[in-house]
């Protein structure tokens, strides 16, 4: 005990700096987790988290039995699924193609341009979409000029286009940036292997198939497992910014639903229950995916 106290005294300086950090993390990270218990109550804003009456799993049941449940789950999985289906291979293909470019200056130029959309806010992306896809926008004009349609289509106003627009925007925004990690993995492949392949005459396609892809296998698996672990994160700002009441049938996902009920309509406990359900499943998914990565591929993300 004495040595303990002496140690603390010696480290007093450090502990003094640490205390505000501990307070911060308790308040901003741990207390909200604890605040989730309102999902089991009928919480009244302004009261403490203990004064509400306990209702058990009533809010969860309400969510599962509501007609919204099916739509929201469908949208979340569809949007995430499309993101995984297109958003995961696209940067890999881009990286492989960039890797084949002979002119290094042109390669660097292309890469530089490809990162730009990643740094643009969703508000700006929404503005771009409003401009390009509006009734007097570029896409409608082209379609009419080429005689595909007679009347402009309201792309942003009709729900059936929403998933494609969102997936395209997501890929457009992230493809360049996400290719960086593949490119750096490609750069770390042993040159000698590639030379040996050339001598064996496997050709360029063969080099990609037998040397490049196996060489970055771990990176690919890791990123794809991470992607699957985040399947419930279907995006949030983009739905609010690009979607509209007329597209809600296709744009409402778990997070926007929580926002609608919790913040806009004030059903605190119900929103907390939906939120909690998502948080729990997300953690389980990440842990599960990590297990798979460890067991089959001997890599870990946690």
């Amino acid at each position, binding site marked *: 005990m004495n040595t303990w106290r002496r*140690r603390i005294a010696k*480290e007093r*300086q*450090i*502990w003094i*700096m*640490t205390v505000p*950090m*501990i307070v*911060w*993390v308790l308040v*901003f*990270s741990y207390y*909200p*987790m604890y*605040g*989730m218990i*309102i999902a089991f109550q009928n919480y009244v*804003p302004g009261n403490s988290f203990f004064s509400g009456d306990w209702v058990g799993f009533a809010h969860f049941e309400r969510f599962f039995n509501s007609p919204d449940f099916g739509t929201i789950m469908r949208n979340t999985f569809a949007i995430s699924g499309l993101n995984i289906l297109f958003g995961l291979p696209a940067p890999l293909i881009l990286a492989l*193609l960039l890797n*084949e*470019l002979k*002119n290094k200056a*042109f390669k660097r130029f*292309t890469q*530089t*341009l*490809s990162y*730009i959309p990643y*740094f*643009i*806010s969703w*508000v*700006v992306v*929404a*503005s*771009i979409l*409003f*401009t*390009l896809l509006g009734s*007097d*926008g*570029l896409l409608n*004009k082209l379609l009419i000029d080429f005689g595909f349609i007679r009347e402009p289509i309201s792309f942003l106003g009709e729900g059936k286009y929403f998933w494609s627009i969102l997936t395209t925007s997501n890929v*457009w925004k992230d493809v360049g940036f996400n290719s*960086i990690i593949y490119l750096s993995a490609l750069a770390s492949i042993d040159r000698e292997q590639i030379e040996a392949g050339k001598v064996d005459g496997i*050709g360029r396609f063969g080099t990609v198939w037998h040397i490049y892809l196996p060489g970055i296998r771990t990176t690919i698996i*890791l990123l794809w497992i991470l992607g699957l672990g985040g399947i419930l994160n279907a995006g*949030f*700002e983009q739905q*609010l910014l690009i979607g509209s009441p007329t597209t809600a049938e296709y744009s409402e996902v778990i*997070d926007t639903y*929580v*926002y609608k009920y919790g*913040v806009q309509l004030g059903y605190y406990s119900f929103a*907390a229950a939906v*939120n909690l359900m*998502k*948080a729990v499943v997300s*953690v389980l998914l990440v842990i599960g995916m990590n297990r798979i990565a460890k067991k089959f591929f001997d890599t870990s993300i946690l």
Partner: protein
Amino acid sequence: MRDYLKPTLGSRVFDTANVVFMLVFCALMIYPFLNLLAISLNDGVDAARGGIYLFPRKLSFSAYELLFQNKKMLNGFMWSILRVVVGTVACLLATGLLAYLVNIRHFSGRKFMRILFFITMYFNGGFFPVYLLIVNLGLTNSFHVYWLPALFNVYFMLLISSYIQNQPDALFESARIDGAGEFRIYWKIVIPICVPVFAAVSVYLAVSHWNSWFDVVLYNPSGKFDTLQVYLRRLLLEMEGLQQIRDQQVLYNRYRDLSPLTLRAATTIVVTVPILLVYPFVQKYFIGGIMLGSVKG
């Protein structure tokens, strides 16, 4: 020998196709911005006819003139910049200090602190409980909500921490023997040697502060601290844009040639340009940041 040195016909066809593909790809990446730029520089009434692709048809700067006389826009610009500066510096210094402290060998709480923060990376309740907390703390409708809840970033802590780990311990030890306090060591030694990783982290922080929109809507409903992104969003909801033009046109009768379309385009350009301007200078840092991350991960 000759076989593998000389490119085959198929190989050359592929190279050409690849270059063509990349040119199209480049155009896709940059065209939306060029299109907006052209529209923003066009006469408003004329732009509403559509058909502007790459160059303005009837050059006019009134959209920008109006924007830069608009108090709301200028206020938004100011809050955005203030938020970027305060938010980035605060998070950088705080997270950096934490990263240093958990790397001090003789600090008995280093493992505890690491775990305490690391857990929050995977176990967080999502946005709603944090929203309730911030409402309960009375932080809504204040500037503090922009930097305080994001003061420590666990991912960046790990990044900076792994960078510090690769520095020779003797650097800090000799200062300690000279009697320097830990905060002094952080300030005088750690920060200077961490410039590369700090630069990378600050790029991401600054961009995310500049770009954030939702937390402004959520936590500052009063509109007093509206950032540029929020202002742009308002314009996107066309009605607002129209109303604003009508109000402004009463004030400035000469702006007859405006339309929501050009005003929106001009605002989008104003929101985007700061990022494009700093972009060439910071490119090497954010790529460095990814490499650092991948070494650790």
